């Protein structure tokens, strides 16, 4: 329904999108015992690390092959080899996630060949899983890199299994970059309440939620375990959360015959209803009383807040998956989407029930967002909100001028209420300030 446009210009001003390698590294960080390794110059890793540390307020394990001018000319095999050996020796990871960058993709390093030869030379690496993902930053965005890494993970790690061995309660959950660690935590709780055992890939709720461990760790202290990843082939069902997870779900269907369903949004009454119904169908459990009660709370909250949402014009600058779920939630409250700017192509964009979607930057957003009542975007949109004198609700990555990004939850009935109250309060504040002003 929406017309998707890409402004024709040579300069991008105030980029909205983040890079593919950053997204790939983020996905890898949801696995336990992991250290992601970027094959590029040391700056590629440093930049990604700064963004992730500032957003999550966590120590982020992230390493580099430290390509130099000379190794770029000669080829990066030696650097990849040396980096892997150093990491294994120093950090003792259980798994390494290797992502490429624009530099090494431009050069054309044959990564699969490298790994094969490195493994031949070093039999001691036989037991060390190394998941490779192609993630040049001259293509796609964070969401694409994240999805590509999840695809590599489910392609390479699960072991062959017979469908007859399928575990009747185990399901795989693929959670896209639109979901925060807090979201994943809520999803796990909901799924578990139906008597199901979820294996979440990647499980950011354990690694980037923000919690104290007893000792220092140079690798991720928690996340999806390798044992669980190996057993994904025995799952009964795959729940792909976010359209960008469809590819990974299809890989599991093809390899193991596991059926899947894609849930584009888990925010909003109907979206959560649909999700819980699906869980009830899969598990054979009826919906737990706890959620029936939360549903009544949400209905009440919707009634309380609908005055403030109705006919408000909201402008969104978000990655496609998050744009989709946020737009659907707002539309379900009677809000209008005034402008929608996103980062990368997605089959969702044309289907959005809005007039147009722009694949662009925050310069485009600033022009399109004029006269809206609320902006939703990452911390980079704060300057625009200030210039346009429009309130801002922060979503996406990076958010560095707010604390608590790891624990924030917007899914399920509870998360939907949180969003209703947060955004409702912003609208209410505007109205009240008018009352006081007169």
């Amino acid at each position: 329904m929406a017309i998707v446009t890409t402004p024709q210009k040579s300069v991008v001003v105030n980029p909205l999108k983040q890079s593919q390698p950053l997204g790939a590294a983020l996905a890898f960080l949801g696995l336990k015992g992991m250290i992601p390794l970027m094959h590029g110059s040391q700056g590629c890793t440093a930049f990604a690390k700064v963004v992730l540390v500032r957003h999550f307020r966590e120590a982020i394990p992230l390493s580099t092959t430290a390509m130099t001018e000379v190794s770029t000319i000669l080829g990066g095999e030696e650097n990849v080899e040396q980096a892997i050996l150093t990491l294994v020796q120093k950090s003792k990871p259980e798994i390494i996630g290797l992502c490429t960058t624009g530099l090494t993709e431009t050069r054309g390093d044959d990564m699969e060949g490298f790994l094969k030869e490195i493994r031949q030379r070093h039999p001691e690496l036989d037991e060390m899983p190394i998941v490779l993902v192609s993630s040049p930053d001259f293509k796609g965005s964070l969401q694409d890199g994240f999805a590509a890494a999840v695809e590599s993970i489910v392609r390479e790690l699960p072991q062959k299994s017979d469908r007859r061995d399928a575990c009747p309660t185990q399901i795989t959950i693929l959670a896209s970059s639109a979901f925060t660690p807090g979201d994943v935590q809520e999803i796990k709780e909901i799924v578990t309440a139906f008597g199901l055992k979820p294996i979440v890939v990647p499980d950011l709720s354990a690694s980037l939620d923000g919690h104290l461990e007893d000792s220092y760790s140079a690798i991720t202290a928690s996340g999806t375990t390798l044992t669980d990843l190996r057993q994904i082939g025995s799952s009964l069902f795959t729940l792909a959360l976010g359209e960008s997870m469809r590819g990974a779900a299809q890989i599991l269907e093809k390899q193991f015959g596991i059926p899947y369903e894609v849930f584009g949004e888990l925010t909003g009454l109907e979206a959560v209803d649909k999700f819980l119904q699906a869980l009830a169908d899969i598990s054979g459990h009826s919906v737990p009383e706890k959620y029936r009660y939360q549903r009544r709370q949400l209905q009440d909250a919707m009634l309380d807040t609908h005055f403030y949402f109705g006919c408000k014009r909201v402008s969104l600058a978000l990655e496609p998956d998050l744009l989709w779920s946020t737009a659907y939630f707002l539309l379900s409250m009677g809000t209008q989407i005034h402008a929608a700017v996103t980062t990368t192509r997605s089959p969702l964009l044309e289907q959005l029930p809005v007039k147009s979607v722009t694949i662009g930057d925050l310069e485009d957003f600033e022009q399109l967002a004029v006269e809206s009542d609320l902006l939703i975007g990452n911390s980079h949109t704060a300057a625009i909100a200030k210039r346009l004198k429009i309130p801002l609700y922060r979503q996406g990555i990076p958010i560095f001028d707010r604390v608590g990004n790891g624990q924030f939850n917007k899914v399920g009935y509870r998360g939907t209420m949180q969003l209703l109250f947060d955004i409702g309060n912003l609208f209410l504040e505007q109205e009240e300030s008018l009352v006081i002003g007169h």
Partner: protein
Amino acid sequence: MKITQGKINELLTEPGCEHNHQKHGEKKNKSCAQQPKPGAAQGGCAFDGAMIALVPITDAAHLVHGPIACSGTWGSRGSLSSGPMLYKTGFTTDMDENDVIFGGEKKLYKAILEVEERYKPTAVFVYSTCVTALIGDDLEAVCKAAAKKINIPVVPVNTPGFVGSKNLGNRLGGEALLEYVVGTAEPEFTTPYDINLIGEYNIAGEMWNVLSLLEKLGIRVLAKITGDARYNEICHAHRAKLNVMICSKALLNMARKMEERYSIPYIEESFYGIEDINRCLRNIAAKLGDPDLLHRTEKLIAEENAALDIALAPYRARLKGKRVVLYTGGVKSWSIISAAKDLGIEVVATSARKSTEEDKARIKRLLGKDGIVLEQESPKEILRIVKETQADMLIAGGRNQYTALKARIPFLDINQERHHPYAGYAGMVEMARELYEALYSPVWEQVRKPAPWEVTIDEDSYSPISPLSPLPQEVR
């Protein structure tokens, strides 16, 4: 600026840099020419370094010619502006696959023109990156053609990340200023008291703490290189009487070459710690060689020191005897020790990475015989040393913030991402307050205490939380 191996070698063996003194053969300039180690390297690339050095020029547009990851941190560098905000706008050619295959020169040319048309910058700095260097885009030629077309300076900054470290990038940024900016315009007037500040990036606005002191003395900062700078003032830099290098070896090449070309002498100073600020002001006055100025300087120092003593007294009482581990690099490894000592804090260990022999000698003198000198250490090793020395706190760059916090150790950030200005006399009070806040926060007691159900013996050990008491003196 053509980047050649010769140019890089010249910068890495900078004769003004003490790293390159008294060493011969292979050992020479070890720390400058060090190659980053795969799997172990931490830190930014040369491109990052050049951006750090040049982005604080506030009225210029800073255009990155490369794919999107190179613009990953746009708009969030810590240097502040007193006026134009254009430097906070992120410009990039956002190279896509087609550009990589067919070359990005045309796109870059158009991009420069679009930036000029829509944002009217005083000048445009164009940064190359690994990818655009690899595909062979001719940055200099494109910038030259664009400058001719739009009639404003377009400065090529040829520092792809893979040529080296952040430090090398700083130097290359300085080279770009020397080659394209310094000396290209004349100031309206000059005074005998004109100086340049080099290597001060106005992180968290801390340069303003010092500028106000210089103003009181009648010293004019002709060019700030580059904190809160306007493009034109850097064009005038060649008319200064003195270059003052601040806490940095990184732009030494610039100071030395300006001495060669324009006969401007330079001094190396620090703005951190009472003794160092005092010395800095004295040295500037002495170099400018005006007896009356010297007299006024002494008077200002006496006044500021007296006021500072009063402001710091309540903090000193509480900070005295506290033990800290300092993990930073270069000049800061001793300049911060001196600031800590002023507050009565004992530095039990510090790092000497990136430090020169002269820095190291100073460290030894300041640290005393029991002090530990660290080199490049892993976070794990830093934690071990904090524990071993029974230190109360870690002072380091933002990268190690969570190393400390996760281990329940108080932390103070002293690098470029921080939000608090520590330079000058006012900065000392700010630093003292931050140290006090961090060390005496009631959270430490709470996060270190086991849960009641984890306690097996010693039931009586419960103690009420002591809240952070406000201090009487507040001098801003």
